[in-house]
C-alpha cells in the first residue's frame, strides 16, 4: 500500500503536447505541400523528402553529438523540413536542400539550444542564407506542370517578377495582371513549391486558428497592414489582392510569422509583430532590391521579438504597477 506518488499540484495535464501541436501544423501544411507536388511534380516531392529527412537526421545527430536528450519525436524537425521545402523552388538541386536543412537545424536551432531557443525561424533563416548564397538556383522558377513537358524545362516568371500588361481601350489605359485571379488563388503560377496555392494555405491557416494552435492576431495584422499600405500606395484593389496572393505572403503570415519560439508571446506583441512584418514586406517589395520581402521581413522581426516581448508584458490582474516612477518623478 505504500509507494505513493507525491507531486505538487496540479495533478491534471492537458492532452496537448509539443508533438501534437507539431502534428497539427504538419496536417495544416499538407494541402499546400500536396498542391506544390501536383504543380511542380516529382522534383518538388524530392525536395520535400530531402528536406524533411535531412532535417530529422541533423536534429538527431546534433542532439547525439551534444549529448542532449533526443528531441526528434517532438516532430519539430519535420515541420522545419516541410516549411523549408515549401520555401524552395522545385528545381533546387538536392544538395542545396541539404545545406539549407543543415543551416536550419544545426546552426539556427540546435546551436542555440534546440526547440524554443532559436532566435529566428529556422526555415526562414535557411531560405535567406540559400537565397544569398545560391541566388541562381534559388531564383529559377519553373512553370506549373513543367514536368509534363519531356523536351525541356520551361521556366517562367513568378507573380512578383512578371510584368503587368499594358493596353488601352476606349481612350483609357489599363494594366492587366499577368495571372488570372483564379490562377493566383489556385496557385498555378511560378514560385516556391509551397507558396503558390493560396486556397490551401488559407485553409491550413484557418485550421490552425480553429484548433487554437496559432492566434489569428499575427496573420490578420500581417496581411491587414500589408494590404492597407499596398492599397494606399497603388490605390488599386486588384493590385492589393494580387500582392496578398503573390509570393510568400500567405505562407509567411500563417505558418512562419506564427512560429512560437521566434514571435512575441502576448496578443499585443503579436499584433505589433504582424504590423512590422506587413510594413517591412511592403517596403522591400516596392522599394527594396529584392522582388520578395516576406522572408526578410519575418527574419528582421524575429530579431526584434525579445524587445517586443519586453515592451508588451501583460498587466497582471490587480497589480499595482506605477510603484517606482511615482516616487522618483512624481514629487518633482
Amino acid at each position, binding site marked *: *500500500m*505504500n*509507494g*505513493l*506518488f*507525491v*507531486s*505538487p*499540484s*496540479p*495533478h*491534471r*495535464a*492537458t492532452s*496537448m*503536447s*509539443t508533438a*501534437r*501541436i507539431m502534428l497539427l501544423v504538419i496536417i495544416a501544411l499538407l494541402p499546400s505541400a500536396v498542391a506544390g507536388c501536383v504543380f511542380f511534380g516529382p522534383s518538388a516531392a524530392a525536395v520535400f523528402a530531402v528536406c524533411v529527412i535531412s532535417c530529422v537526421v541533423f536534429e538527431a545527430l546534433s542532439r547525439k553529438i551534444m549529448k542532449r536528450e533526443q*528531441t526528434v519525436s*517532438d516532430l*519539430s524537425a519535420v515541420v522545419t523540413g516541410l516549411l523549408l521545402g515549401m520555401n524552395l523552388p522545385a528545381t533546387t538541386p538536392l544538395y542545396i536542400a541539404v545545406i539549407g536543412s543543415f543551416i536550419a537545424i544545426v546552426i539556427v536551432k540546435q546551436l542555440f539550444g*534546440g*526547440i*524554443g*531557443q532559436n532566435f529566428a525561424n529556422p526555415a526562414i533563416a535557411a531560405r535567406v542564407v540559400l537565397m544569398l548564397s545560391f541566388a541562381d538556383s534559388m531564383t529559377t522558377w519553373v512553370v506549373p506542370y513543367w514536368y509534363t513537358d519531356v523536351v525541356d524545362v520551361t521556366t517562367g516568371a513568378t507573380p512578383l517578377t512578371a510584368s503587368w500588361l499594358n493596353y488601352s481601350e476606349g481612350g483609357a489605359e489599363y494594366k492587366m495582371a499577368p495571372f488570372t485571379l483564379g490562377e493566383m488563388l489556385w496557385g498555378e503560377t511560378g514560385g516556391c513549391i509551397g507558396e503558390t496555392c493560396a486556397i490551401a494555405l488559407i485553409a491550413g491557416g484557418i485550421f490552425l486558428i480553429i484548433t487554437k494552435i496559432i*492566434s489569428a492576431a499575427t496573420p490578420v495584422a500581417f496581411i491587414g497592414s500589408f494590404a492597407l499600405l499596398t492599397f494606399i500606395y497603388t490605390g488599386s484593389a486588384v493590385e492589393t489582392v494580387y500582392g496578398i496572393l503573390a509570393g510568400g505572403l500567405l505562407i509567411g503570415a500563417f505558418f512562419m510569422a506564427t512560429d*512560437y*519560439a521566434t514571435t512575441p*508571446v*502576448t496578443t499585443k506583441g503579436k499584433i505589433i509583430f504582424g504590423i512590422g512584418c506587413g510594413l517591412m514586406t511592403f517596403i522591400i517589395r516596392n522599394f527594396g532590391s529584392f522582388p520578395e520581402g516576406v522572408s526578410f521581413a519575418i527574419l528582421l522581426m524575429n530579431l526584434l521579438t525579445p524587445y517586443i*516581448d519586453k515592451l508588451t*508584458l*501583460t*498587466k*497582471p*490582474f*490587480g*497589480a*499595482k504597477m506605477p510603484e517606482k516612477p511615482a516616487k522618483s518623478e512624481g514629487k518633482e
Partner: protein
Amino acid sequence: MNKLNGIHLAHNKGTKKCETVDFPLPKSVIIPMSQHMGAPCDSLVKKGDEVTVGQKIGDSGAFMSAPIHSSVSGKVTDVTDYLLPNGSVCKAVVIETDGNQTVCPDLRAPIINDRQSLIAAVRDCGLTGLGGAGFPTHVKLNYDPAKTPVDTLVINAAECEPYITSDYREIMENPNDIIEGILLVQKYMGIPMCKVCIENNKPDAIELMQKKTAEIGSIDIVTLPSEYPQGAEKVIVYSAMGRIVAEGELPSHQGVMVMNVSTVSHIYRYSQDGIPLVKRRITFDGDAVTENKGNYFVPIGTRVSELLAHGKAEDAKKILYGGPMMGMCLYDTEQPITKTTNAILAFRKGELPQTTACIRCGRCVRTCPFGLMPLMIEKAYNAKDVEELKKLKVMLCMNCGCCSYACPAHRPLAEINQLAKSLIPRK
C-alpha cells in the same frame, strides 16, 4: 468587464447524486494541532486523558489561529510529532475511540447578540474556511468596519474543482442552514447584500437556492460560468461583482467578504446546537476507488487508510487532499482528514507526462486568470533574478495550476511560481 482567463476541465462530478452518509466511526483518530492558516495550537491534553466529542483539545493565544476539538470520545493514547503535508511539523493528538461518542457536557449553544459575540462564537466553534485554504473564519469576520466597510457577502459555492461535490451536497441537503447562516452573518456584521455564487454546471442547486431565497431581498443567486478557477477568491469577487481585489489587498478592502457555502451553514448550526467543527463532509472519489464512492460525514482525524479500505482502493498510486487542480498529495495513507479536507481522491496513475522544453507557445499566459507570464517567471526564476520576478508580479500567483495544466511541454510552472515567490524577501 473583461473576462478573466481560465481553463475548461472535465467535471467528473460522479458523486453528485450521492447523499451524504455518516462514515463508520474509526477505532482511533489522529488530530493535528495545525489544521488552519496561522499559528498551530498547543495541545491541551496529555497521554491518558479521557476526552469527549467537542471537547477543546488544542488552542493558541495567537489571533491568527482557531481552536481544535476532539471529534470522538475516548482516551488520548499519544501526543506525537506529525509531519504536515506542507512540510512543517506540529503536534498531533492520537485518540482511541470508546465507541460511545459521548458529547462534551460543557457544550452550549452560544448567545449571539452582537458583532463581537458572533466573532467569539465563530472562534469557539473552531471554524476555518471549509473550502480548502483553512483561513480562520473569525479572523475574516474581524475586519475593521470603520476602515474597510463591507457591503457584500459573497458565498462561494462555485466548486470549480473537478470531482468534488461536497459543497453541492451542502446546498442540496441543507439549503435552509445556508440561508439562516447568511442572514445571521448579515444581521450581526451589518452586511446589507449577499451574493451566492454557483457555477452553471449545477443547475438544480441554482434553482433550489433561487426558490428558497425568492422572498429574501438581500440574497442574490449569481450564476457563474463553469470555468476553472471560478472559485478562487479574487476571481469570484471579480466575476460576481466586477470588483478587483488588488495586489496586497484583502477582499474587505473592496467591501467584500467571501465565505464558503459550507462554512456559512456551519455557523448557523453551531449557533443552534453549540457543537464545534468536529466532523465534516468530504467527497470520496477517484478511479482507484472501486466501491462506496460518495459523500461522507467524517470525524476530523479519521485516517485516510480507513476511507481507502472502505472504498477498496488497494492500488491507489496518488491520493489527494482536495481536487486535482490544487489538491495536495498524501505521502502516507495514515494521514488524517482535517478541517480543510473537502475531498479525498485516489487515483491509479500518479505520474504526469514527461516534461519537454518550453516552446514559448504562450498558453500559460493565455490561461492565467491573473494575466501573469509563467514562462517569463520560469526564466527569471532560473536566473534567480529577484528584480525581474518582482516586476513579473509572481507574488500574485494563487497556484491555481492553470499554467501547468495548459502547458503542452508539461512544465511544472505553478510549482516554479511558488518556488519563485520564496525568493522574494517579505517586507
